[in-house]
């Protein structure tokens, strides 16, 4: 096993794969397309984050304290950033259940695939629900707008709504995508071909959504 991994990671295979008279990437077509989509999506989110870095370095107005803006009082204790921390744990957990679903896809265990994917989607839906709560708190209670807020630089609002909104949109699409695939798995759409690649492909998308959140969490909420 380890020998196999060493062989695979060697640079010689890169030359072989690109120069031999064969397909360069010996993986399912849909998986390669998902990877190309994810790489392009990486650039979209990176442009948002670099744009955020730029406006934040260029503004002479004070940046609000995200830690305080996103604080919540739970059981009489004021906890900084607590909702965001909970959302982070939920997304990581959903990534874990998704990874297990992908694993059971290799055993073609329909029951477990369906169950784990639905659980993943439910975690995703609860993430979006918390985001709705967070947005409405910021809009209605704190009066934060894309063009201004009481806590400092107006760009705080525009960046926040744009980046978390775009990420939330990705999560929402992911929830629908996962439920759709889970439903198709249970219906037996892949019984005949025995090809469950779609679960791994959907999994890649879902892990990517989690990955993007890691960067948003670090750069927007913690910075």
């Amino acid at each position, binding site marked *: 096993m380890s020998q196999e991994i060493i062989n695979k990671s060697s640079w010689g295979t*890169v030359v072989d794969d690109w120069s031999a008279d064969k397909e*360069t990437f*010996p993986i399912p077509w849909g998986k390669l397309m998902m990877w190309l989509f994810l790489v392009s999506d990486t650039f979209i989110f990176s442009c948002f984050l670099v744009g955020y870095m730029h406006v934040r370095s260029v503004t002479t107005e004070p940046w609000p304290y995200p830690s*305080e803006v996103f*604080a919540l009082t739970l059981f009489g204790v*004021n906890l900084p950033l607590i909702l965001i921390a909970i959302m982070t744990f939920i997304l990581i957990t959903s990534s874990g259940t998704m990874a297990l679903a992908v*694993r059971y896809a290799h055993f073609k265990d329909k029951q477990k695939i369906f169950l784990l994917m639905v659980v993943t989607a439910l975690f995703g839906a609860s993430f979006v629900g918390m985001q709705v709560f967070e947005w409405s708190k910021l809009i209605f209670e704190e009066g934060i707008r894309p063009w201004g807020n009481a806590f400092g630089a107006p760009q705080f609002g525009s960046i926040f709504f744009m980046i978390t909104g775009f990420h939330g949109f990705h999560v929402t699409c992911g929830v629908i995508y996962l439920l759709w695939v889970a439903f198709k798995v249970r219906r037996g759409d892949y019984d005949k071909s025995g090809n469950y690649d779609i679960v791994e492909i959907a999994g890649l998308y879902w892990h990517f959504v989690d990955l993007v959140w890691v960067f948003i969490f670090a750069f927007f909420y913690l910075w």
Partner: protein
Amino acid sequence: MNTADNAQADIHPIGIYLKVWILLFVLSTLSYLVDYFDFQGYTRWTLIIIFMLLKAGWIIAVFMHVMWERMALITTILLPPLVLLVLIGLMSTEADYAFGTRVDYMGQPEAATRIHVSDVHGSAHASGQAEDHATVGH
């Protein structure tokens, strides 16, 4: 490499997923604690970046199976985003310059006093200190 090889290589013991899962929990907790204990300055940025990169690395390597892919695919995925470093470099240089001109020629403050949430809401919120600079402009 044919599909049979792939199928064999793709099945990994369940333990590795659970271990990475726990590791991600620990790393997230640590990055939350950076904020909770209010580390500031370079300590804060270094810790945040380290925890972020570790989390991202484990997600990509294990959850997205990249460590088990062939090098041709790994390079196709991971090398193109490296050009973003150029963009980051250009934008931060440009931002420094624009910030400097705003301070030098437009009389804007070099270090504006940050506003605590408690300055705006009053003492109901726990964390802040002074109340004198709660001027709200926007």
